[in-house]
């Protein structure tokens, strides 16, 4: 059976009362033939047949109330058994389609996701890998930071009695050599793995040199056994070699203690980094005039600020402090 449901008779009226049937079961009806008269709240309405067919069943007698959407009558034949009197389902009136879809993301979307820049580097310039001396510096500094237990001491040196034209680096190198005799442990190599140390007879001073390419530390060798003239010549050669970048790698190995003379630029005090296996480094700041007590009275004197950092695994505070005292004494000599 195919059901014919009471259609909306207008103005959203929810129900109608059957007044009179104009057909009976078994009748053949034509399209638009009047089937039934119903009375709504507004009027008596004649309901036409939506299709041709044979009447199979009438739902309700005159006087019965039929709600909009409820079966009113049925035709013979197979109906579209939609089953429900609740609502109306939209029916497909087009031809059959095949369903095409991608399970998950489209390849173009996956590529976009894979190629997106990460949150942190977005809008920053591409990272530039470090090379050469800068790369070496990064590695050495990290290695030092990971091993060394650094302690720094600071002190001022009155260099007011120096003659004009004194080569400051030369004086510092000589002072370090003298101080190493007072505190030999400052001129040693320490092995943190085996917890052993080697005291060094010769003092090989690594001299930190700043260049556009990075930090170079050429080694001025055996400073405690060489003549002043010889040292001057050696220092001059090293500086030239660094400036022209012609220094062989061997010339930058074997330092037993390091001097960082950053006073040639700006800065007074620092915590210079000890480079293992060395145990100490001396930092020399910029000389400046200061008002200081001098023979019991204020005086303007030239002051050299000194910083020393030592590896407290290998060196005691006392040893370092005595080293500093000896270095100052050597420097203050005119």
């Amino acid at each position, binding site marked *: 059976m195919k059901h014919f449901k009471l259609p909306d008779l207008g103005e959203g009226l929810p129900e109608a009362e059957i007044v009179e049937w104009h057909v009976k079961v078994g009748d053949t009806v034509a399209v638009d033939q009047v089937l039934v008269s119903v009375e709504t709240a507004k009027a008596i309405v004649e309901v036409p047949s939506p299709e041709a067919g044979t009447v199979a069943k009438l739902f309700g007698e005159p006087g019965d109330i039929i709600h909009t959407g409820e079966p009113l009558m049925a035709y013979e034949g197979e109906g579209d058994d939609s089953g429900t009197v609740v609502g109306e389902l939209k029916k497909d009136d087009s031809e059959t389609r095949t369903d095409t879809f991608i399970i998950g993301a489209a390849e173009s979307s996956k*590529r976009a996701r894979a190629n997106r820049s990460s949150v942190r580097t977005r809008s920053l310039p591409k990272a530039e890998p470090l090379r050469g001396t800068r790369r070496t510096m990064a590695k050495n500094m990290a290695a030092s930071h990971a091993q060394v237990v650094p302690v720094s001491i600071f002190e001022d040196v009155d260099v007011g009695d120096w003659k004009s034209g004194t080569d400051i680096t030369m004086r510092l190198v000589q002072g370090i050599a003298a101080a190493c005799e007072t505190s030999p442990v400052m001129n040693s190599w320490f092995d943190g793995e085996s917890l052993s140390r080697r005291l060094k007879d010769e003092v090989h001073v690594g001299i930190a040199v700043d260049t556009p390419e990075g930090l170079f530390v050429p080694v001025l060798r055996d400073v405690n056994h060489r003549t002043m003239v010889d040292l001057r010549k050696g220092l001059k050669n090293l500086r030239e070699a660094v400036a022209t970048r012609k220094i062989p790698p061997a010339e930058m190995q074997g330092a037993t203690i390091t001097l960082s003379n950053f006073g040639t630029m700006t800065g007074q005090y620092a915590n210079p980094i000890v480079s293992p296996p060395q145990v100490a480094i001396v930092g020399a700041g910029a000389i400046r005039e200061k008002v200081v007590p001098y023979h019991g009275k204020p005086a303007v004197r030239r002051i050299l600020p000194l910083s020393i950092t030592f590896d407290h695994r290998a060196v005691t505070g006392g040893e370092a402090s005595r080293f500093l005292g000896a270095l100052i004494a050597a420097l203050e000599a005119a």
Partner: protein
Amino acid sequence: MSASKSRDVTLVEAVNMALAWEMEHDESVVVLGEDIATNGGVFRATAGLKDRFGFKRVMDTPLAENLIAGTAIGMATQGLKPVAEFQFMGFIYSAMEQIVSHASRMRNRTRGRLHCPLVYRAPFGGGIHAPEHHSESTEALFAHIPGLRVVIPSSPQRAYGLLLAAIRNPDPVIFLEPKRIYRAVTQSVENNGDALPLDTCFTLREGSDLTLISWGASIMETLEAADLLAEQSVSCEVIDVGTISPLDRETLLCSVTKTGRAVIVHEACRNGGVSAEIAASIAEGAYLELKAPVIRVTGYDTVMPYYRNEQAYLPQVEDIVEAAKRVIAL
């Protein structure tokens, strides 16, 4: 039985086809619900099943949703795979106690000794001129419950594949059928027992300017909007979320990373809707790729109106097109 035959089916017929396939191939599958056996279901989803598989596997229940849900849990924990029908989603709330307090947490509560391989089917959504309680879309309630999968097919093919997967899933699945499109599309579906994944979105249309995200019946309006926008040279990617819990954020993020724009469409009211979860996920995972705010096109925060006003409530094609133009203009 002629297996693996291609049939032209509507979405509701695909549901019936999937149920029949799985009952044929797995004797532990049973179906139960109000008027589903002798009558064949209010929408005919279970038509013919009782004649084919007998009243022991196709059961009419009393009009008692709490009983339907609880009975299914008992069956599921003891070795059956029940597929229980709630006649309309609007009737499901008296069963919430069973669903939320028992089905969803059975595996956890018993430390894995019992599990609950059941499916709760329910037609949902408006647009069919139905009375009160027959039209709402409250899928977000279930998406919020850990331990439940919430699956919403939007085509005959996906209804078939997802329902098979839902029945085979070892934990409870809420399977919501968009009744407005139960018969709106006919597709050729291979009746071969192939399931679709229960944790993956479906990309219905590939595009580059804008991602339209939807599920359920709104997929129809969304696809239509994509067609209209294509005529105006706006290339839309259309994603059917399919399973709203667990949410396939990866697919959504891939697409939005590509397009930089997203409009989310759903029939449910806006406040606390699943679109909010999707928008938040996009903000968390693709913020720097976004070229415009994520826009939602949804129903209103009101009770679903009676049918004379339901079209005013439901997101229309022009609403989606207008929202798309707004984000494109930004």
